[in-house]
């Protein structure tokens, strides 16, 4: 059960109120977090200033078919500010988005039960909107087992901690002949060159 402060509950239950409920957005971009609010003025919440920005949120339907619910977030793309960041960071896939719902008159209250912590699943852009499809990771779509065993294909992402290469070369074909750090090659050279070996 979600909990709110007594004042927020009274405010929520009023028939008419002069205080708006605002939707705040934390988008974790690669180098910083951007704080946006769907409002006419700047809002300060938990020490962060939320910038007024046009965006819309559409909550998906929950079905009995076992679909994992998703949220569609549309952020204005008129100035191409967001699109530029998206293009520099591979579509922001797997980046975190937090949606807060707060009452403007009680900003110091705890609304953490209303927060939605979501992940960017996909992203599309047109001249008006950047559309993020947000959701939770589907466990049935996760790779299992996590590592696959290939003879001549490296499991490690180039220049990752596992790869260990820190030089100036930018491209790796992820096979042994092209490996920049053969001591840490992430393939399994002992496997047979053809067919499948059951261990």
């Amino acid at each position: 059960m979600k909990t709110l402060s007594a004042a927020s509950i009274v405010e929520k239950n009023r028939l008419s109120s002069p205080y708006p409920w605002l939707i705040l957005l934390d988008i974790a971009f690669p180098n910083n977090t951007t704080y946006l609010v769907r409002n006419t003025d700047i809002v300060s919440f938990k020490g962060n200033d939320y910038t007024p920005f046009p965006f819309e949120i559409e909550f998906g339907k929950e079905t009995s078919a076992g679909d994992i619910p998703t949220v569609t977030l549309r952020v204005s793309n008129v100035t191409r500010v967001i699109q530029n960041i998206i293009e520099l960071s591979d579509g922001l896939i797997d980046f975190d988005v937090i949606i807060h719902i707060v009452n403007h008159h009680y900003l110091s209250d705890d609304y953490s039960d209303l927060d939605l912590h979501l992940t960017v699943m996909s992203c599309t852009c047109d001249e008006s909107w950047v559309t993020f499809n947000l959701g939770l990771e589907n466990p049935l779509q996760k790779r299992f087992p996590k590592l696959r065993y290939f003879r001549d294909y490296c499991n490690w992402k180039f220049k990752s901690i596992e790869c260990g290469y820190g030089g100036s070369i930018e491209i790796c074909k992820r096979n042994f002949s092209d490996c920049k750090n053969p001591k840490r090659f992430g393939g399994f050279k002992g496997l047979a060159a053809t067919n499948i070996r059951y261990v």
Partner: protein
Amino acid sequence: MATFPTFSRTVEWEMEESIEDSSVKSTLESGHIHSRPKFTRDRKLWNGVTYKNLNATDRTAFLSFLVEVRGTSTTFTWNCPIDSTNYVVRFLQIPSLSRLIPGYYQLSFGVMEE
């Protein structure tokens, strides 16, 4: 930021002043209305701001200003003739500048607070 030009004529007295309706409402079966504002500030609106008998110099100044603000694309500073306060506004639509007689023009527009 661009500033709305000053003309040789004063603005007409008649104009409409209002605010943007940003309320969210749900009508209950009992007839009551469940309502709240959507935003923390309701932006002001002014409609029917009219200048009559502008001369060719005023016309040139206005058209230059219109190009500078790119129509409705950008905001500008406008002194409201009702309360003599400066507001940051944008045009609601592209203003209409019509010719009354050769050499004299009428301008009317609406603006909305940013």
